[in-house]
């Protein structure tokens, strides 16, 4: 307050939007899905989500305290990104997971994936995705092979109903006998806590778009291309379009996980390429592995982001392609 003159390099424009505010917006956007998930899956879902959020925040505090920061300093600079990571980890597991799974997942995500790389904005992959895959690999023995049995082996892996009759195989091109409305509302389906009710997720996505936190075009590219690629893989069977979009964790992943600022390219063209490849990769992976692969597709594409940023650059203002070098090459 005493120093009214500020010496600093550009940018000089100040905005009231801080990382903390943006992250709080994302938290709010995730609330509908969380609440509906708890309504659908009961109090155990609440326990899982709460444990994952708490352990994510505690993990960040413990790491920073160990790095020699004071408690007050951490609380002042606390952006809510670890809350989001915890929420997403809680929402992407099913209620058949043991209660300690989200604790380990959150700690792995926050400490190994985020803090060791330098904290918010420096991670090379989305921490929530990494945490989810960590749990997926680690606790299969406790979950049982509910999501992995080859007989479930469908693109609808995670959200397919428990009864064997609903099991579908994309390679046979069979449409599941769950109605599309059920898929949209998430009623009568098995799946992760947060991903079943598509309407709640879409409400969150629209909220984020209205608050200008994310550009809704990019997730839509991802979702639409997944549908089209699935249609093409299934031999132009257009009845697969909607089921492939509405099943699994696609909408959750597209709106909340793939759009993470740090793990998306910087340019418009780069973003379009990133999300388009995500869609195609997801459809191909689902077809090839016969299980839900949203998180793996996003993880793989996250690793490609630095390459996209290297080769696709914004044209500097007033840039002209030099004629000389062209002539020299010829």
């Amino acid at each position, binding site marked *: 307050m005493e120093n009214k003159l500020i010496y600093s390099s550009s940018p000089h424009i100040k905005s009231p939007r801080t990382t903390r505010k943006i992250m709080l917006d994302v938290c709010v956007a995730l609330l509908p899905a969380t609440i509906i998930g708890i309504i659908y899956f009961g109090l155990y879902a609440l326990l899982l989500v709460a444990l994952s959020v708490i352990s994510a925040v505690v993990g960040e505090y413990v790491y920073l305290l160990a790095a020699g920061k004071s408690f007050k300093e951490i609380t002042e600079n606390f952006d809510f990104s670890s809350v989001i990571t915890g929420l997403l980890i809680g929402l992407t597991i099913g209620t058949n997971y043991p209660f300690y799974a989200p604790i380990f997942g959150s700690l792995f995500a926050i400490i190994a994936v985020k803090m060791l790389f330098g904290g918010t904005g420096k991670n090379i992959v989305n921490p929530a995705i990494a945490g989810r895959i960590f749990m997926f690999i680690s*606790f*299969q023995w406790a979950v049982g092979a509910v999501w992995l049995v080859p007989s479930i082996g469908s693109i609808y892996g995670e959200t397919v109903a428990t009864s064997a009759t609903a099991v579908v195989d994309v390679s046979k091109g069979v449409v599941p006998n769950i109605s599309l409305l059920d898929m949209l509302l998430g009623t009568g389906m098995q799946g992760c806590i947060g991903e079943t009710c598509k309407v709640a997720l879409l409400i969150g996505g629209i909220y984020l778009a209205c608050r200008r936190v994310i550009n809704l075009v990019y997730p839509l590219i991802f979702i639409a291309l997944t549908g089209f690629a699935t249609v093409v893989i299934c031999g132009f069977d257009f009845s697969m379009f909607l089921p492939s979009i509405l099943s699994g964790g696609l909408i959750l992943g597209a709106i909340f996980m793939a759009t993470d600022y740090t793990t998306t390219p910087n340019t418009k063209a780069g973003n379009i390429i990133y999300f388009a490849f995500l869609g195609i990769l997801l459809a191909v992976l689902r077809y090839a592995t016969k299980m839900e692969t949203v998180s793996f597709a996003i993880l793989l594409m996250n690793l490609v982001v630095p390459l996209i940023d290297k080769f696709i650059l914004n044209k500097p203002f007033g840039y002209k392609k030099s004629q000389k070098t062209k002539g020299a090459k010829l």
Partner: protein
Amino acid sequence: MKTNFKKIAKDGLITSNPTLKLVLGTCPTLALTTAAMNGIGMGLAVTFVLICSNVIISLLKRAIPKEVRIPAFILVIATFVTIVRLALDYFLPDIYESLGLYLPLIVVNCIILARAESFASKNGVLASATDGLFMGIGFTLALTTMGAVREILGSGAIFGYKLWGFSIGFFSSSAGAFFTYAMFILLFALITDKAAEKSRIKKSAKIGDFTQTKEAK
């Protein structure tokens, strides 16, 4: 020339620990540390080959022409690897089975070749043998602790003895191997750096004490 055996031992175990400081022999480290027993088996096999090849190469260091030294080293190493393979196959078939392909691959293990090239071909027989012994022990210790950590976390057991039903499958997968390896390198670097810093401060404090007392006077 007097050989500093203490320094050789410290080099092998800590300052240039082949696994955690030089990051050599990564392939068996990542692939075999799913169980602590594998670490001991692999480590002892490598130690044996390392000592023997170091002794022979240091004896032959004047006889081997510089231009063809690598093939000559490989020939010596391969001889001992064959001995180890045949002996393990006969006496400890279980370990032979679990080490599998990585046993013949000791021939091209970077640690052995690196020690032959950078130490045994320049030093005396006794020094080379000591170097081989401590490098081997350093490798064995690193592999065994890594194997123990991964076995406890990844399958809830130690040396094949089941501790509890709880396990984190990530640590027995190959991704977990890279993760554990990185964490081990990180922790080892942290500890050794801190120890080095401490001994440096101790040294400077001795000099500082002297000047301080002088000033006080």
